[in-house]
């Protein structure tokens, strides 16, 4: 199996997991769907946009993205109080 097909299969699996969580609210479900979104973003950036082959750049893109998603989760948690 080539790298592109592997990336696609990872994205399909992650999307299926996200869809399975749809409709179930809550703090930890929110964390799970954001974690899955981060994993999908990493697959697209690394596999389709080839950042895996660019030393340091995948991490440089993912770090602010993950921090932002963590921030979103924090705001979401406030709305559940």
């Amino acid at each position, binding site marked *: 199996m080539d790298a*592109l*097909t592997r*990336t*696609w299969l990872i*994205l*399909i699996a992650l*999307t299926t997991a*996200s*869809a399975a*969580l*749809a*409709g*179930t*609210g*809550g703090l930890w*479900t*929110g964390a799970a*769907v*954001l974690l*899955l*979104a981060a994993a*999908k*973003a990493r697959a*697209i*950036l690394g*596999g*389709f*946009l*080839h*950042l895996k*082959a*660019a*030393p*340091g*750049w995948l991490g*440089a893109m993912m770090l602010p*993205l993950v921090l*932002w998603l963590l*921030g*979103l989760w924090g*705001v*979401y948690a*406030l*709305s*559940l109080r």
Partner: protein
Amino acid sequence: MRLDDLPGELILWILIVSELLIFAAGITVMLVLRVGDPAGFGAAQAMLDGRLAAANTFVLVTSGLFAARAERAAARGAKRAARRGLMLAGLGGLVFLALKLFEYFKDYAAGIGMETHPFFTFYYLLTGFHAAHVLAGVAVLALVAIRARAEAVQAGAMFWHMVDLVWVLILPPLYLMR
């Protein structure tokens, strides 16, 4: 970590980061507003059909695979295979838009407008702006398919992956985080 290590043109990475920032700002403001009216936002969100959004995610990531294959084919000079990949990726974009339009019609029929609730203002703005990018992406894929030069196909595919990336990030706050 050097700028020269980045695949493709630097300007495209500037575009990708800029677009991500714009959508991130919209999503962040929407979630901050939700803190003031969690019940209203939750009720509004529950009116959306998450199945269509999930189907569209499958469509878009699959079209991303075709765009990536087209890029690889163009890099080795296989123009016919590159055009086939671009055509399939563009077709995926059109299916995405058709599903999105269907979803909008369903929403409209259910009485959901931009001013029904602040959640829907963000819903229509974020998904509408994204759909405009999908439409632009389909046009870009068609344009680069004409000559199928490696650099142009790579640029088109990068734009398409950005559209894909934005969608997977706007999906959870709009449809999944209830």
